[in-house]
Structures are given as C-alpha cells and as structure tokens.
C-alpha cells in the first residue's frame, strides 16, 4: 500500500472520530501567552466554537484519533478489529505539528485526542501522553488539550496525562451493563467505573495539592467527562437519566455526553441500523440541563417519561413535567421562590434571576415578564402576574398542543 500523506491520514482519522459527541473546550484554568518569549495559546473560561459542521455540531478542537487500528472488537465502533475500514496512523510529531498549524491560523482551541488500542493499553496511552507532553513542553502550547484515556492503562500514565491535559475522559459507552456486555464484550463495566473512580481521586488530589502549594502542577483542571451511546441498546430514557445522575454524583463528572447511535459503515450485525435518534438525544441533553441547573432530581425527570420510560419527543422534558404536575402551577412571579420559578416551562435561569431582581422595583406585569424572556406564549399558562391569571388556561385538557413548541437548543457545551 502506498504511503498515506498527511491529508489522507487526517481525513481517515477525523472521520473515525466523528462519532464522539464531545468537543467542549470550556471550564479550564485561564492561561495566556502575553509577555512570554516562546509558545502560543490561551484559554478563557468559556470555550470557543470555531466553526459548525452541517450536523449542527460545534468544531472547537482538532478531534482526531492517533490511529484507528484497534485490537478490540466493539460492535458499535467503526474502528473495531473486524471492521473493513481503511486504517491510518499518525506519529506523535504529526499530531503536534497539525495542532500547532491549525491553532496559529485560529481554526481551533486545541486538541482532542483519542485512539484505537494498539499493541497494549499502556503502549497506546504512552503515545497519547507523548503528544500532550510534546505540545506542552517542547512547544509551550497553552491551548486546550482533551485526552481520551484508556481505562486499564498504568496509573502512572494517567497521572502524566492529567498533568498535561485540561480534560480527561473515559467513555462508559453504554447506559446499561447488559448493553455493554453485548456490544463491547472485551470492555468491562466495572473496569471503566474503577478507572473513573481513580480519575476522580487524582483530580481531587490535584486540587488539594494546588491549595497547599501554589506551584503544584495542575491536574486536569477541566475535570473529567464521559460519553454514552443512545439507541444502540435497550436502555430507556429513565435508565439513561439515572445512569447519568449516578455518574455525576459518584465520579464528579463535569459532563456526560449523549451520542445518538449513528449507522456506521461496515456495521456489525449486532446493531440497529436506523437513523440516529437525534431528537431523543436532544431531550436527554435537556433533562441533563434540568438536573444540573434547575434542581430537578433524577426521579423527577423519570416522572416526566411515559409508561415505557421514554421522554416525549414532541415537547421538552420541563414542559412534560409541568403538564404532569399542574397542581404546582400557576406560580405568582411576584412571590414564588427561585427554585419554584425555575420549574416554569420557558423560564430560564437568567430570566428567573432577572425576575427576582426586578421584583424589588415593581410588581411584575405580563409585559414585564415578557421583556425578560424569549417568548411569553409558553410561560403564560403557568404564571400569575400583576395583571394576569391563567385560570381558564391551566385547566384546559388540550393545553399541550396549544403551547408553542419551541425548544431551547441545549447541545452546546
């Protein structure tokens, strides 16, 4: 086979990475290059999406695999051993050069590097770490680095990865253990959980050290995240939400990414081959939002699901919850506490905080609330304002179709 050039390798190894949902570059320590003699890059609190693909997803990082060869045979994975895809492999130097070339042109915020497992977990992890090390030490790169770690790699390698990377992640892959057993028979659910636990401990140690010695090296300042595939196994939304909540609690994850299972070329016979359930994925992100920013408990999100444990696809989970618990409404915007107002469909965190501030100045009318929100139509049936009472609306049985179906886009990290 003829030698592949950089562009061909890049296309193969980016194509192989396109199923990974995560691309966030936020939440890390602030750094910049001002006044520095060498090196390049900065990180702000917030990540920057440098482009958007026609699939609506943010392109913030150069997201590639080091190699798409793999000794594992996970059925959902395009790179599995038995797949017939074209293989390629970057050297560490090639990845470093490509990252810097893209960064200098302001195409990206940094690098998200993952890899198929070649030879052994430790060997693969060493290669990933070498890329990050070279960027940070040889080139003084101050942009964002996200490394996907290999669950059973040597803890010393994970430790080295954490010193160079902003974020580390280990994919749980599937929301249920039987699903993982069916689709990734060589991976072990307990092994993945143990690795996440180890990572949590290492991140906490890093924080402690930083508190005591300012010069202590940072360890993965943007924390750890994970991804699970939605729609490839039998898990329903209730199961997924509970799994996610457990992951947030137990391993202090920054983010759980949901990836609607896409058909992959040369797929294994074990898989459902249909269009990816994008709306379902979207609803799961919304429910994730409810738990992280709106104070909903996992059981409350589960209460918004139907008899089959699935979130409705035509309305968002917050509205679904509100329609099920109509007795909690209407809420008086001039009196209700913050946590109650956060339950009003259509009122976001910002709007609720603005309402609380404005209340000191005036009794809010419907028009006042309208100025603080995107659209008042969705909110109206659920609130009482100085000049508004929705008694006739809240009791209507056909409320659901009457409420304008606009959804907040919550995919962006």
């Amino acid at each position, binding site marked *: 086979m003829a030698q592949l050039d950089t562009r061909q390798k890049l296309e193969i190894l980016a194509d192989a990475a396109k199923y990974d949902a995560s691309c966030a570059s936020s939440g890390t320590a602030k750094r910049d290059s001002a006044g520095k003699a060498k090196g390049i890059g900065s990180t702000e609190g917030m990540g920057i999406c440098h482009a958007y693909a026609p699939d609506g997803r943010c392109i913030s990082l150069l997201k590639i695999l080091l190699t798409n060869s793999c000794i594992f045979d996970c059925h959902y994975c395009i790179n599995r051993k038995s797949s017939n895809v074209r293989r390629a492999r970057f050297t560490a130097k090639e990845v470093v050069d490509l990252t810097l070339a*893209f960064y200098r042109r302001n195409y990206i915020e940094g690098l998200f590097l993952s890899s198929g497992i070649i030879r052994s977990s430790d060997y693969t992890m060493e290669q990933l770490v070498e890329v990050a090390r070279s960027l940070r030490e040889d080139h003084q790169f101050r942009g964002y680095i996200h490394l996907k770690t290999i669950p059973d790699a040597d803890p010393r390698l994970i430790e080295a990865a954490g010193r160079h990377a902003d974020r580390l992640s280990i994919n749980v892959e599937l929301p249920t253990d039987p699903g993982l057993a069916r689709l990734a028979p060589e991976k072990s659910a307990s092994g993945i959980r143990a690795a996440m636990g180890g990572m949590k401990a290492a991140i906490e140690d890093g924080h402690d050290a930083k508190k005591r010695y300012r010069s202590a090296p940072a360890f993965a300042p943007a924390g750890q995240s994970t991804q699970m595939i939605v729609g490839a196994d*039998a898990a329903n939304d209730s199961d997924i939400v509970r799994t996610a909540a457990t992951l947030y609690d137990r391993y202090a994850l920054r983010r759980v990414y949901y990836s609607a299972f896409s058909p992959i070329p040369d797929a294994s*016979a074990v898989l459902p081959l249909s269009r990816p359930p994008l709306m379902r994925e979207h609803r799961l992100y919304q429910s994730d939002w409810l738990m992280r920013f709106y104070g909903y408990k996992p059981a409350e999100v589960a209460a918004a699901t139907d008899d089959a444990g699935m979130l409705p696809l035509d309305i968002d989970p917050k509205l679904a919850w509100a329609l099920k618990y109509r007795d909690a409404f209407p809420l008086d915007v001039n009196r209700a506490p913050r946590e109650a107002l956060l339950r009003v469909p259509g009122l976001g965190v910002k709007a609720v905080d603005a309402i609380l501030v404005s209340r000191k100045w005036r009794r809010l009318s419907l028009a006042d609330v309208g100025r603080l929100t995107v659209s008042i139509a969705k909110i109206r049936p659920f609130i009482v304002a100085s000049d508004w009472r929705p008694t006739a609306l809240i009791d209507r049985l056909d409320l659901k179709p009457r409420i304008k179906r606009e959804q907040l886009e919550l995919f962006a990290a």
Partner: protein
Amino acid sequence: MLPRPDDIDAWRDAARALAMADVAPADIVWRVEGEGGDLFGTAATPRPTPTAPAFAVPRRFVDLAQSVILHRDPERFALLYTMLCRLKDDPARIDDESDPLRRRLDLLAKEVRRDIHKMRAFVRFREVEDADGERFVAFFEPEHHIVRANAGFFLHRFATMRWSILTPELSIHWDGTTLTEAPGATRADAPGDDPVEALWKGYYASIFNPARLKVDMMVKEMPRRYWANMPETALIPGLIAGARAREIAMVEHTAPRGDGATAWEKLREEASHCTRCPLHKCATQTVFGEGPIDADLMFVGEQPGDQEDLAGKPFVGPAGQLFDRAMADAGVDRARAYVTNAVKHFKYEQRGKRRIHSKPNAGEVKACRWWIDQERRIVRPKRIILLGTTAVHSLTGKAQSLVSVRDRVLDVGDGATARATVHPSYLLRLPDREQAEVEYARFVEDLAAAARL
C-alpha cells in the same frame, strides 16, 4: 461630536458634562466624526457650571455602556444618555431589569458580545512570508465597532506571532511587541490562500457526520454573514447535498449483514436482563423469540403465558399446542418459522394459587417494541403474521380492532408484508362449540393464506 464610533471615554466626558448641565436627552444630537448626521448641530459641549454637584454612576452602568457603545446602532449614544440622566437621580435603578430602556440596552450589549465572540471564533489567519519571516494576516467583517475592543484577545493568544487583522473600518497589526492601528482594508488586501487551508477543509468535511444533518442549527450558530471570510464554508452546499446519499451508503454498505446467529444470541442475552418496563419484576424470565434466524415467515403473539414464563419458550402452553395443530392443518411448517411475542414478559394477576394472564398496556407494548424491532432486523422476514390485537398494536404502533385489520395487508415498514389474525387463546375461550369450529377453520385459513402471501 465624538472622534471615533467606539470611543467610550469621549462619550463619557461629554455625557457627564451634559448631565451636570441638566441638558435634556431630546436636546442633544450625537455625532461621530466623519459620519453623517445633523448638519446644523454644533459640536459645543456645555461646560458644567461650577456649582453643579458631581455624581457617580454604578459600575454596572459603566460596564453596560462599554459594550453598548460598540454597537452600530446610531441611537446608542442617546439611549445611554437617557439612562445616565435617570441614574443621576436614582443610581440603584440600574438593577431594574424589566425596565424597557434597560432591556433595550441589554439587548444591544448582547449583540455586541456575540459579535466579539464570533470574531474570536471566525477570524482565519493566512500565513505570508515577508522580509522578517512569517506573518499571519486575516480579513474579517465585524457587524459592530468591536475590533479595537477585541484586540486584547488576539494579543494574549498569539503574543509570539506577528499578525494583522484587516477589517473594512480599521486594521490592527501586531509585530510581537506593539499593536498599531491603520485604516480599513478590503478583502483584496489580504492574502488569497494558505497551504494549510486544504488540510483544514479536509478535516471539516471528515468530522461531519452525514447521518446527523441539522442545517438550521449550524446556520443559527454560524450566521451566513460570516461565511465569506471562512474557507471551510465553501464546502457546505456539497456536504449537505451529499449527506443523504452518504447516510444511505453507510447503512447499505453493511447489507447483507454479517453473522446473524451471533447477533441474535447476543440480543437474547441482553433481553434476559431487560428492565424497560416494570413487568420484569414479577415474571420468571424473559421469553425471547425462537426459530431459524433466516426465516421468511415470522409469527408475533401477544405475550408469554404461565407455562411459557416457566419454560422460557414462546407458544408451549395450551394456546401454543392449538397453534401447532392449526399450523399442521394449514400445511405450514412451524420449524421453518420464527415465533415470538410482542411483549416478552408474562403479565398476570395472582388469583389464589393461579396466575391469570392480564393484557399488557400501551406503555408495556411500546417499551417492548425495541426488542421486536431488533429481532426483525436480524431475521428480516418477508411475511409477518400478527396473532391478536396486542401484536397489531406493537407492530403498527396503533391500537386497532382485529375486525378492522383482519382482511387487509398491513404496512409494518422495512418491506415486510403483514397480516393479522386472532390469537389462538381466543379460540380456546370460545364457549360455543359450533362457533369454535367455524373460528378454528377461519384461523387455519388465515395461516395458510399468510404463508402464501
């Protein structure tokens, strides 16, 4: 008269002086040097009378004004001044977020912040060589007067590079030590190409998953206004146009599918742990379908009964025995058919020592649909016979009476033809012997017809 459209300090000085002289907002015409405006206005700024008391405004207003002043809306100065006059008497009013003027200013500030963020995201440098080595040059068209305010970001990030950002209004240059300003430029002043751009485009095209096309979402976050100066956006029409074909190719590339037997074994194993609905709690085990996984004919019953639940096999109880007899009478070989149920766990009510079958509800049928869909994907039967209303409900997604569907060919997707008939347990429950015989004969006829379909 302000020297520059984004000059917050000049505006602040002028506004403070005017406010101290109690000049009403309606009496002021704000102008920027070099821009059109009121020809008769004078540039005179009143001197504050020595007796006028000094006043302070909240920090929050200063922050807001700093953003709003960068907006291109010519009304911005007047709006800010109106707000300033109000705050002079009552500084705390800045916190009244539902006030219409405050809201208007907030929205202007938000648009400015967004444009600043988009500039940080969408500036695309191209590398050029000059006498001193490599230099990076970009052309960008911001919507508001943000370039000067945004320079710090690029200074911090690209401190060790030499770079220039050209925009129609203003250009900024960084030589590694000092930032200089120059007049506006045109796209023609910027370099036309960069060899790395081909790599970047290759990356952009490859990282896009054609099975997830969401063009609206893309345009919302990356408005077309910015596209002209971004090399990768030229690929978008082609990527969108080819997406459906690529998605189909992704799916079809796999047919004929690999090892169905392994897939089926694994699926059955996963189903044995199913907790998709509460029925798993009381049932003994999951009763999965069985039969040749390349069968042309699939039978779908409603749910396992008492004996099936204990045996872990479908259609082994009294109804199963009747089904076997009818199959034989219809001349259909059960061994060549795949037999399964719409719901895989036994649902019952305990009456004394007996477990009496009870009908699964819509949620349970829907929850279990995942399994039957997976079975169909592996077996790919050409003909499907639905036994009873639960099976009809499961595969068509609608609760329909048997009478309304019995003599029709039903569409159940993926090219398979389906027919519905009664569930054999219905025949067992008929009290009238004569009627039972008639119904049995009709059932046999249905099986024979379905097998021929």
